[in-house]
């Protein structure tokens, strides 16, 4: 397996830049997930890695070799496509063997490698079938099998699970994760599904408009997002953002005033902040708590008065859609009990260590105790 290094890599179509100076390092055996909104360049980046698109400028290395001008096969890359892209007129065996045959491997070698891969993927009984005779999940496995038999240095996956139904997707996700461990393979995986990104990735790279916003472990992205974009992109439901003004700031914490007059303390490094600066605070729905019997609020907590406008029951929890006194909308994850009703007046609190703070340019202040804190409760 191999490590991959992107240095100042850019790609443009004509005069339209799609990727801007991407710097990224992928370790041996690492599974890196590329996420981002549609059109952020994640699929383009994958195609550039693969060699299906030219690199406009910059350098792409696999191990120590610069591979900018090499074809996909010469790079030793295998790609699994969203639509599986199986050759419709060839049976499963031939689909998996085609690349090897062209490479000129011997018949016995081909048969042995295809059979081994088929066993790993539990498709060894399907080798004589045509792709149209297979279910979606089976086709997916054949596509993965076709990638495995070539023993590539790098695997690329382009939203491989998005054509599967929900239960199969979860199952295949776990199998992929197992496969990654068994093969000890370097993999790059593109998805727009957050759950896939969080569960599969050793490292997640968040892209937006062709720029890398942040690269890090799933937990880092969740707990210590580099900026507002990453914070809103990771986490579901989306983080609540509220405008605020800095009252006092130090390296051990920041006191802020929200627009409705309530005060919030955030345990973030405020050494860069000025008193009176306009900022935004971020509250994750799962970190807020809702007090359904409003009494006097604690002085060190966020204490916003709000009204429940919608409740969504998910079973294990519920989502409360709130509107504050000044019309600000909030989403809070409750504990799932039916203790709250539409139209209830509640008090929303968030512990200081759970508050995120973003400056006007979108950069995040470093959180001092980013570890996961208490989950939501309805009192």
């Amino acid at each position, binding site marked *: 397996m191999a490590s991959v290094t992107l240095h100042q890599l850019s790609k443009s179509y004509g005069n339209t830049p799609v990727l801007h100076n991407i710097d990224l390092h992928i370790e041996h055996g690492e599974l890196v997930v590329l996420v981002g909104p549609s059109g952020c360049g994640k699929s383009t980046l994958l195609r550039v890695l693969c060699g299906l698109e030219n690199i406009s400028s910059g350098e792409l290395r696999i191990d120590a070799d610069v591979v900018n001008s090499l*074809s996909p*096969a010469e790079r030793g890359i295998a*790609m699994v496509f969203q*639509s599986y*892209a199986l050759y419709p*007129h060839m049976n499963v065996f031939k689909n998996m063997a*085609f690349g090897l045959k062209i490479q000129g491997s011997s018949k016995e070698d081909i048969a042995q490698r295809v059979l081994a891969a088929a066993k790993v993927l539990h498709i060894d009984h399907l080798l004589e079938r045509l*792709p149209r005779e297979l279910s979606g999940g089976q086709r997916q496995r054949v596509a993965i099998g076709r990638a495995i038999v070539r023993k590539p240095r790098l695997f690329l996956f382009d939203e491989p699970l998005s054509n599967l139904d929900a239960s199969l997707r979860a199952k295949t996700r776990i199998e992929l994760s197992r496969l990654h461990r068994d093969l000890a393979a370097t993999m790059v995986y593109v998805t727009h599904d957050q759950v896939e990104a969080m569960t599969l990735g050793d490292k997640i790279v968040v892209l937006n408009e062709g720029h890398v916003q942040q690269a890090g472990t799933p937990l880092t992205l969740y707990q210590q997002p580099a900026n507002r974009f990453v914070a809103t992109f990771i986490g579901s439901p989306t983080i609540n953002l509220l405008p605020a003004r800095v009252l006092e700031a130090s390296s051990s914490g920041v006191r802020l005033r929200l627009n409705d007059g309530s005060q919030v303390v955030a345990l973030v490094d405020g050494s860069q902040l000025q008193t009176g600066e306009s900022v935004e605070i971020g509250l994750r729905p799962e970190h807020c708590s809702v007090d359904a019997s409003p009494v006097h609020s604690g002085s060190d907590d966020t204490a916003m008065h709000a009204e429940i406008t919608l409740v969504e029951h998910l079973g294990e929890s519920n989502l409360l859609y709130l509107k504050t006194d000044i019309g600000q909308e909030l989403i809070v994850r409750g504990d799932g009990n039916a203790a709250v009703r539409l139209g209830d007046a509640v008090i929303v609190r968030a512990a200081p260590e759970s508050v995120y703070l973003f400056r006007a340019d979108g950069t995040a202040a470093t959180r001092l105790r980013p570890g996961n804190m208490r989950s939501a409760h309805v009192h």
Partner: protein
Amino acid sequence: MTHTSTLALPSQRSLPRLGIAPSRVLVHLSLIGYLLLAMLPVLLVLMNSFKTRDAIFSDPLSWPTAETFSLIGYTKVMARSDVWMYFQNSFIVTVASLFFILLFGAMAAWGISEYRFAGNRWLRFFFAFGIMVPIRLGTVSILQIMVGLNLVNTLSALVLVYVAQGLPLAIMILSEFMAQVPGELKDAARCDGIDEFRIFFQVVVPLIRPAIATVAVFTMVPIWNDLWFPLILAPSEKTQTITLGIQQFVGQYATDWNAVLASLSLAIVPVVTLYALFSRQLIRGITAGAVK
């Protein structure tokens, strides 16, 4: 991203049998009417080719009876060895033209539909233009070129002209079908290390086989039936095609109708055979066309 990779034509669906709608009766009636209109002349030729000369003239619309039945036309035609040569010439010209039209047409269609290059659009226009302008308009210059190339009275001259005549339509139809072959399939092949020629011959061509069969049928029939170019470019005794050869039985003062009708009937057989060979693919091309 692209959806699952099927060609655009919808798959065959069985219609529910809920009585027969009047509109369908109308459709079938008009189709049957057209069939009769198209088949009657052919039937007339076949019927009369089995009759004596007198019977052809006295009652051309009746079936051959025991009295009027005669194979005189066929024996006359078969007895002449040059007729077999005419058949052979027609066959060589048709098959060779077909082969080159399909090969070059598919390759050009692949080039036009798959690769972006300067002049791509102009090349498309150029070929579309070739469909619109009848090649016969250029007969004089074609003849001059053939004279210059010393190709008059050779089968190659005919093959060259027919390839030129058939290419525009073939390229048009095939490039449409090739554009529908999912891009990810080609990308997957490229990832497998398969070069562009193999992608074309081993991945793309098998997928558009129905389209190729359709093009084959549409181009084959006019070539087989053509009288114009054989008459102008290859009228020598050795290079006549069957459509031209039949004309020998049509005289200025007397026409040997038995021989004409018999040879016409015989001339139908090879095209019908070729059509039958392609038709299995053709029907799939029209109704299914799906690759997955």
